[in-house]
């Protein structure tokens, strides 16, 4: 149990690193946005998992329970998810417009086009 005490952090870190790798290594813009999404969900886990109390229940107050998980991270992440999908939509709209202008969604090809012209 001692070894696994921070297992939630490790899952978070793995997802975070995977998302970071996709964003940095891949030139395709849709793939980059998906990578950002993976990074974002890792942040959800980063906030939510320390809020969990073993033996606690969901933070809906009821006379039957006394121990609740921490509701504050839930509020923050609820906001983050909805803002996340809004920014994803704006990003995808930009990708669509870039594709119209350059007929490509690969960073390298667009860079090459800009420098040939």
């Amino acid at each position, binding site marked *: 149990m001692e070894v696994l005490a*921070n297992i939630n952090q490790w899952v978070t870190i793995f997802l975070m690193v995977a998302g970071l790798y996709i964003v940095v290594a891949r030139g395709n813009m849709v793939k980059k946005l998906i990578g950002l999404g*993976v990074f974002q969900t890792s942040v959800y886990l980063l906030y939510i998992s320390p809020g969990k109390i073993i033996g606690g229940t969901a933070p809906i107050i009821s006379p039957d329970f006394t121990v609740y998980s921490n509701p*504050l991270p839930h509020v923050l992440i609820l906001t983050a998810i909805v803002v996340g999908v809004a920014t994803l939509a704006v990003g995808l709209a930009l990708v669509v417009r870039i*594709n119209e202008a350059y*007929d490509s969604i690969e960073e390298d090809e667009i860079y090459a086009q800009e420098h040939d012209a």
Partner: protein
Amino acid sequence: MVAVTIGIVRLRNLFAVVMLGGIYSFLMATILYVLDAVDVSMTEAAVGAGISTVLLLATLAVTKVREAAPIHPPALPLAVALVTGAALIYASVDMPPFGDPLGPGHQHVAPEYIARVLPETHIPNAVTSVLASYRGYDTLGETTVIFTAGIGVLALLVGRRRPRRSDGASGGGNA
């Protein structure tokens, strides 16, 4: 979950990646549910697996499905990612153990909110009441962010009809 993530990293067919993204979101929603975050889990299932997937598919229908082979060797990004990961794991050693009720995050304001929510607002769901009442300004700002995003997408996609038709004709054919 780990397997799905590796699949997302490896696959170059963007259509398959988007589908894996949907699966990933549902898995994430399940994990959030297990972590007692029922509101967040519900939102993630609806937003991540529903809306995001549809939007990504719509984008793919307009653009291209295949991702080009990476030109640069992945060594440098991999090194950056691994160094970041190692630093984060080093930092995680100092975090309180998972699920510990004595963790510092549970000591200060959270019990206060849980104790005050029912008498002050008559709303049993602590997440809803903190979201809309105690932190009303934040949620107002968030609604404004969504509003701004909607305006931005409308301005980008609807405002100008068919700007460069001459070289954009191959756009929708690859779906």
